[in-house]
C-alpha cells in the first residue's frame, strides 16, 4: 500500500502492467492525470483529435499484440474516441481507453462536458469500468488489461471521475485479479479436433479459410505447418490477410466482395472448408445461405458466440486457434497422408490462378493503382508494416499488395473506418520504430485524420502516406457508376486540398507522383526520410476495383470486370 492520488495510481498501475506509450489529449476532466504524467515514465504522444488517439492505440496494439492505451477528457473528448473504439471492437483489437469524467457529485446533473460514456461505450467495448474510489483504480486497470488482451481481444474503457483522480489514499496494487463472469476458453478441444481430422482426411478438395483470429493469436507457423502437411490451399478473409504468406505456393489471397478471383472461385469448388479464426462476415462470404452449401464446414474460433452466428457448421472447435491448430497438426502426424503435390485439386488451384492472371487486365495507363502497389511491394522490405484507409485504396491493397511477412498488415476491416490507416500507422511506428511503416491511403480517408501529420512530425514517428489520389470518394463513385447509372452525388473532392502542400504545412514532406518513375523515386526518398512523407499519386477517377461480388449475391456471382 502506498499513499498517492488516483491519477498517480492509474499511471503506476499502467506502468506495472508494462504499458510504455499512451496516446491522448488533455481536457478539464483529466487534468489530474496529465499532472501526474509530468513525473511518469510513460511516453505521452499528444494527438490533435481523440479519434486518432484511439486509432494510434489500435495500430500500436495490433503491431505489438498487446494492449494499446489512449487518454481523453470527458464529454466530447470521450465521444471523439468512440469511432476508434468501435473500430477496435469490430476488429477485436485490445485498446484501453481511459477517460476523465466530471466529479462524482456532478454525475447525472448534466454538468459541463458530462457524457454518460459508460452507456455510450457499452455496445462497442468488452467492458466499461467506472471506479468510484482511488483504491479501486489499480485493480480496475489490471482487470481492464486482462479482459482487453485475453480471449477474443477487444477494447475496454475506464471512466474516472475527476475527484477520484484527485483524491489520495493508501492504494493497494494487487498482483492477481479474477473476473468471475469471464472465463475465455483457451485450450484445444480434442474431441472436436478428432472429428476435424476425420473430415479433412476424407475430403478431396479441402480449403483453409484463415481469418483475423490467426493473426490475433499469432498462429502463423501452426497454420503454415497444417497447410504444408496436408497440401491444402489457403484463402484468407480480408481481416486474415497476412495470416499466411501471400507468396507461398499454397496461398490464394483473400476471398470476399473484392477478393482475389481465384480465391472466390476455388472456395466455391471445395468440398471441405476449415475456417480458422474467421467469423463468416457478409463481406467475406456473400450470402450466408449460399456459402459452403453442400460442403463440410469446420469452424475454429476462440469465441463460442461466433459458432452458428452467421453460418451453421458441421464441426466447431472452440478454443485459442494456435492451441487448436497445434493439436490438429499433432493428431494428423499419426495419420498416413497420401496426398501428393501433383493432385487434381492443386492442379485446379494453379489453373485458376493462371486463368485469372490472363483474363483480368489492368488499365493500359502508365500509372494505375495496381502498378503502383506492385511497385511499393517490390521496394518495401518484407518486414515493413502497412496499414490502409478504407474504400478503393483498401481493396486495391487487398488485391495487389502481397503481404509476405505474417501480421504486418492492418486495416479497419470490420467497421470500415475512413481515417483509420494514417493514425494506425503512427501507432504501429511507435510500437516498432525499426521498420518502415506505410499507410496505403486514398484522398477521402486521409483527409479525415490528416492532422495526425503534426504527431508524426513532432513525435518523430516518420511514416509514408501512399496516397492514391483520384480526388473522389472513389468506392462510392464506383457504386454510383455501377448501380445508380453514373448519377454522381457527393463524391467529388474537386482537387482540394493540395496534399503535398498540406504535408509541407505540417513540416512533413509532400511529393507528387504522376508517373511510375516519379513514384519509384518518391518511395525511395520516403524510406530514407526523417519526417513523414506524403506521396500524392495521381489515379484516374474512373479506375474501378475488380473483381466485385455485389452486395446480397454469392461468391459464385463474382464480376471480374466492367
Amino acid at each position, binding site marked *: 500500500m502506498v499513499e498517492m492520488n488516483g491519477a498517480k495510481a492509474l499511471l503506476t498501475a499502467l506502468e506495472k502492467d508494462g504499458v510504455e506509450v499512451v496516446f491522448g489529449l488533455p481536457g478539464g476532466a483529466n487534468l489530474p492525470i496529465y499532472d501526474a504524467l509530468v513525473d511518469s515514465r510513460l511516453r505521452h504522444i499528444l494527438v490533435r483529435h481523440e479519434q486518432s488517439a484511439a486509432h494510434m492505440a489500435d495500430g500500436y496494439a495490433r503491431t505489438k499484440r498487446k494492449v494499446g492505451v489512449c487518454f481523453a477528457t470527458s464529454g466530447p473528448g470521450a465521444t471523439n474516441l468512440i469511432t476508434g473504439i468501435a473500430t477496435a471492437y469490430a476488429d477485436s483489437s485490445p485498446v484501453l481507453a481511459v477517460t476523465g469524467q466530471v466529479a462524482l457529485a456532478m454525475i447525472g446533473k448534466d454538468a459541463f462536458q458530462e457524457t454518460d460514456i459508460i452507456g455510450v461505450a457499452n455496445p462497442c467495448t468488452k467492458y466499461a469500468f467506472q471506479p468510484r474510489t482511488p483504491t479501486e483504480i489499480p485493480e480496475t486497470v489490471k482487470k481492464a488489461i486482462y479482459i482487453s488482451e485475453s480471449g477474443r481481444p477487444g477494447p475496454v474503457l475506464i471512466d474516472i471521475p475527476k475527484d477520484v483522480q484527485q483524491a489520495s489514499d493508501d492504494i493497494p496494487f494487487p498482483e492477481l485479479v479474477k473476473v468471475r463472469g*469471464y472465463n475465455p476458453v483457451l485450450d484445444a478441444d480434442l474431441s472436436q479436433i478428432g472429428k476435424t481430422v476425420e473430415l479433412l482426411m476424407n475430403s478431396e478438395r479441402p480449403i483453409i479459410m484463415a481469418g483475423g483470429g490467426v493473426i490475433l493469436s499469432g498462429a502463423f507457423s501452426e497454420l503454415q505447418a497444417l497447410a504444408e502437411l496436408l497440401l491444402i490451399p489457403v484463402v484468407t478473409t480480408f481481416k486474415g490477410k497476412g495470416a499466411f504468406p501471400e507468396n507461398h505456393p499454397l496461398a490464394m489471397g483473400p476471398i470476399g466482395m473484392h477478393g482475389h478471383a481465384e480465391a472466390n472461385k476455388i472456395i466455391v469448388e471445395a468440398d471441405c472448408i476449415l475456417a480458422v479464426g474467421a467469423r463468416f462476415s457478409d463481406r467475406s462470404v456473400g450470402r450466408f445461405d449460399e456459402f459452403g452449401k453442400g460442403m463440410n464446414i469446420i469452424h475454429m474460433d476462440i469465441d463460442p458466440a461466433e459458432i*452458428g452466428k452467421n453460418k451453421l457448421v458441421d464441426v466447431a472447435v472452440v478454443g485459442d486457434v494456435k492451441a487448436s491448430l497445434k493439436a490438429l497438426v499433432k493428431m494428423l502426424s499419426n495419420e498416413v497422408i497420401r496426398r501428393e503435390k501433383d493432385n487434381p485439386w492443386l492442379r485446379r488451384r494453379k489453373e485458376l490462378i493462371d486463368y485469372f492472371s490472363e483474363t483480368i487486365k489492368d488499365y493500359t495507363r502508365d500509372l494505375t493503382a495496381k502498378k503502383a502497389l506492385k511497385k511499393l511491394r517490390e521496394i518495401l522490405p518484407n518486414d515493413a508494416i502497412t496499414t490502409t484507409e478504407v474504400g478503393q485504396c483498401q481493396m486495391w491493397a487487398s488485391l495487389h499488395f502481397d503481404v509476405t511477412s505474417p501480421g504486418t498488415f492492418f486495416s479497419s476491416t470490420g467497421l470500415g473506418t475512413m481515417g483509420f490507416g494514417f493514425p494506425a500507422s503512427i501507432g504501429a511506428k511507435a510500437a516498432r520504430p525499426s521498420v518502415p511503416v506505410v499507410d496505403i491511403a486514398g484522398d477521402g480517408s486521409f483527409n479525415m485524420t490528416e492532422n495526425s501529420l503534426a504527431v508524426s512530425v513532432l513525435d518523430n514517428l516518420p511514416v509514408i502516406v501512399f496516397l492514391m489520389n483520384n480526388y473522389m470518394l472513389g468506392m462510392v463513385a464506383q457504386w454510383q457508376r455501377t448501380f445508380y447509372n453514373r448519377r454522381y452525388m457527393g463524391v467529388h473532392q474537386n482537387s482540394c486540398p493540395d496534399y503535398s502542400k498540406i504535408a509541407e504545412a505540417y513540416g512533413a514532406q509532400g511529393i507528387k507522383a504522376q508517373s511510375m518513375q516519379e513514384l519509384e523515386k518518391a518511395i525511395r526518398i520516403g524510406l530514407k526520410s526523417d519526417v513523414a512523407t506524403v506521396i500524392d499519386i495521381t489515379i484516374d477517377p474512373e479506375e474501378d476495383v475488380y473483381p466485385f461480388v455485389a452486395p446480397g449475391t454469392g461468391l459464385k456471382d463474382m464480376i471480374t470486370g466492367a
Partner: protein
Amino acid sequence: MTTSTEIESPDKAIPLYILSSLVENKPGVLFRITNLFRARNFNIESITVGSTEMPDLSRMTITTKSDERTVDQLVKQLRKLIDVVEVTVLDKNRTVYRELALIKMKAIEPAIRMEIINYASIFRANVLDIAKEDILVEIIGTPDKIDAFKNLVTHYGITQMARTGVSALPRGV
C-alpha cells in the same frame, strides 16, 4: 381455403424458452443485458430480476418465444457479458416456473362480480380489492394459466393489468 378456426396463432406454434442466469448484483448490469437484446435483435417475452441466496448475485429469469438456434445465440451472447456469471436454458419439464398477475376489471353488476369471484376461485386466484366499479384479482401460475384466465375475463373489460414475468428454478433431484 382455410377457415379462421384452422389458422393457428403464430404465437402458439413458437415454443417458450426459459433462461435462468446469475448476474453481478451491481449498477448497470440490467442495462448491459437489455442493451444486448436490443443490439442483436433478440425478442424477449419477459425478464425478471431479484435477489438470491448470495448477496452479490442476482437471478435473472428471461423468457423468449423463439427457435433453438436463436436461443443458442442468446445464451452465448449472454455468456460473453462479463457481468453474467452463469446462464442455463431450463428444461420446462423439470422446472418450476411461476408468474404473478394483477388484473383489474370493470364489475358493477352484482351478478358479474359473482361470476368473476367464481372464476377466480376456480383458478385459485385471489380477489385483492373490490371498489364501487372495479374488482382486482391476483393470479399466480404459469404464463399459460394466466393467459387462460385473462381470456376468460377479457369481455368484462380489463381496465388495468400488471404481470411480473416468469420466475423459475429447476426442481430438486
